[in-house]
């Protein structure tokens, strides 16, 4: 009987849940606000600060209404996302300092001023190009960014029809951040965040061409990359272009997925670095007459590894920031993205260190640093779609891949890359893009869909081979189209400006001939004898 009574009670409570009473404007009339006499005494425990008194009221005669409260909730969500995206953007901006010291440390002291100056000015040159033209091409037709309140003016994509489907090619709103209604608070956040990403791609190239790149050629080449080449591919991947729509138009997974830019940022930078390094040619003394490679050692491994740490710190802006928010649409995945990022960097450094230790007998410091960066580059695309085991494997493979790639580029291709930029960013950027198509576990859920296709991004190992095909089409576009475009552009720059400094300037060191000032004027620099067989 007791059991029956208990069952009856349970059935009763289950059958009649208490419905929450709807909130009305009258409910707000009874909410206490802190009394002014209490507020003037200060608020040491914070209990009086941030109350109903701080909610903006549209009509003071009506007082606080439900609409006022809901508007405040909405604005708070967007404010959280604005602050998150801006601060992570600031972290990414600081990565420029990391790149600067890594590249300078890996170059010889006689080129320190020149290498630092390229890394310094690439920030301004890229920003100018992107503000004038690049941003409009990349994001002018993205069609709204929900986490940032819509960014509604970015709504015009230039599209052609191919194979019976629309192919978005470039955006048309946002020139000078005023054209097309883009003088807009949400658009400004999008611009800042995307601008620092673009600048990261540009600074990759300065590494592969260091110690023999004419400064004027660097300026022109970087401007074109920031204004056209980078924004074009970024539009196809992130701006509503045809790669992002491979899912909706051709049924290939969720379309090309690149969470934070292994392909968009690092492969574009890395492949352009390859194009420029081929055109500029190797440094004098890098290869003997029979083609044997000489190691040209950098001048400061201490700042190289310091720079790697700065970059690893900045990467917490790069990847978690790419949710473009911390509230709504699955943005709480920022925790998972951040942990994936740090794990892949760790396994990348292990992979490179162990490879070098086993192959050459010592745990090479510069390659271990490059292994960390390679792991971070590779996890950039999949960081939002994989679990921690996947992230660790991706990073470990990247750490070994960067060593193999450096050897291939140096000894087989005989392309001189003083900092390993082609391998760290180019090769591992491509690996990162592919790894999304393999390791994405189908557990992420950013508002229920990605690139307009319902469901979560799922790779081959979790059942969707179509996603891998979409990723490979992205890789083919990077290798076949982006490289070609960068190569042709830099051939034109070579024809117009000349890419390489004179042999005299190169042997002397570029600081005086190119910049007019030594990086280390109080040091006596002694040239190491270079034997040419």
């Amino acid at each position, binding site marked *: 009987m007791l059991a029956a009574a208990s069952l009856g009670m349970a059935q009763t409570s289950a059958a009649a849940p208490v419905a929450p009473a709807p909130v009305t404007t009258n409910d707000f009339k009874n909410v206490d606000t802190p009394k002014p006499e209490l507020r003037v005494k200060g608020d040491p425990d914070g209990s009086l600060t941030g109350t109903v008194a701080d909610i903006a009221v549209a009509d003071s005669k009506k007082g606080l209404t439900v609409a006022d409260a809901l508007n405040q909730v909405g604005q708070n969500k967007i404010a959280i996302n604005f602050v998150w995206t801006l601060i992570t953007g600031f972290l990414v901006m600081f990565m420029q300092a990391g790149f600067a010291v890594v590249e300078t440390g890996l170059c010889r002291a006689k080129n320190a001023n020149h290498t630092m100056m390229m890394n310094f000015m690439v920030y301004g040159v890229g920003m100018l190009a992107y503000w004038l033209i690049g941003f409009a091409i990349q994001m002018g037709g993205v069609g709204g960014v929900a986490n940032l309140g819509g960014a509604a003016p970015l709504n015009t994509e230039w599209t052609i029809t*191919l*194979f019976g489907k629309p192919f978005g090619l470039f955006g048309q709103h946002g020139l000078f951040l005023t054209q097309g209604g883009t003088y807009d608070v949400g658009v400004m956040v999008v611009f800042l965040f995307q601008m620092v990403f673009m600048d990261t791609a540009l600074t990759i190239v300065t590494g592969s061409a260091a110690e023999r790149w004419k400064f004027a050629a660097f300026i022109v080449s970087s401007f074109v990359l920031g204004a056209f080449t980078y924004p074009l591919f970024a539009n196809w991947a992130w701006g509503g272009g045809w790669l992002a729509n*491979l899912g909706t138009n*051709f*049924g*290939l997974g969720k379309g090309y997925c690149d969470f934070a830019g292994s392909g968009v940022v690092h492969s574009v930078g890395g492949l352009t670095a*390859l194009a420029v390094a*081929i*055109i500029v*040619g*190797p440094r*004098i003394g*890098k*290869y*003997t*007459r029979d*083609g044997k490679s000489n190691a040209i050692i950098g001048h400061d491994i201490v700042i190289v590894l310091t720079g790697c740490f700065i970059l690893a710190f900045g990467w917490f802006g790069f990847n978690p920031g790419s949710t473009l928010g911390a509230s709504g649409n699955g943005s709480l995945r920022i925790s998972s993205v951040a942990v994936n990022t740090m794990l892949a960097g760790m396994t990348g450094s292990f992979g490179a260190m162990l490879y070098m230790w086993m192959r050459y007998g010592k745990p090479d410091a510069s390659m271990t640093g490059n292994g960390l960066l390679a792991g971070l580059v590779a996890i950039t695309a999949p960081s939002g779609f994989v679990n921690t085991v996947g992230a660790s494997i991706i990073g470990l493979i990247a750490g070994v891949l960067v060593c193999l790639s450096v050897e291939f580029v140096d000894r087989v*291709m*005989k*392309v001189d890359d003083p900092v390993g930029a082609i391998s760290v960013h180019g090769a591992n950027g491509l690996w990162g893009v592919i790894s999304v198509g393999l390791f994405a576990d189908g557990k992420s859920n950013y508002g229920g869909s990605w690139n307009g296709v319902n469901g979560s991004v799922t790779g081959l190992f979790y059942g969707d*081979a*179509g996603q*891998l*095909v979409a990723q*490979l*089409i992205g*890789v*083919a*576009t990077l*290798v*076949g*189209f982006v*490289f*070609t475009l960068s*190569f*042709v552009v830099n*051939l034109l720059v070579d024809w117009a400006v000349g890419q390489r400094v004179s042999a005299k300037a190169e042997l002397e060191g570029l600081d005086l001939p190119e910049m007019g000032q030594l990086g280390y004027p109080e040091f006596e620099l002694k040239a190491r004898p270079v034997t*040419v067989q």
Partner: protein
Amino acid sequence: MVLAGIVITLLGFLISVLSLAMTSGVGGRMVMVLIGLAVSFTGIIGIINRAYLKNAIWRK
């Protein structure tokens, strides 16, 4: 030689894009994309870079 390399590298990209129209199966598309990638890499490593190596500064 460099011009031929540019054309072949771009051709690899076009083969990959054409996979979207020429077949609707995932396997067929993957094969075409991989062929396109191989063609592009041949253009870069086998033709463009090799052309530059013929006149490399260390040979002089």
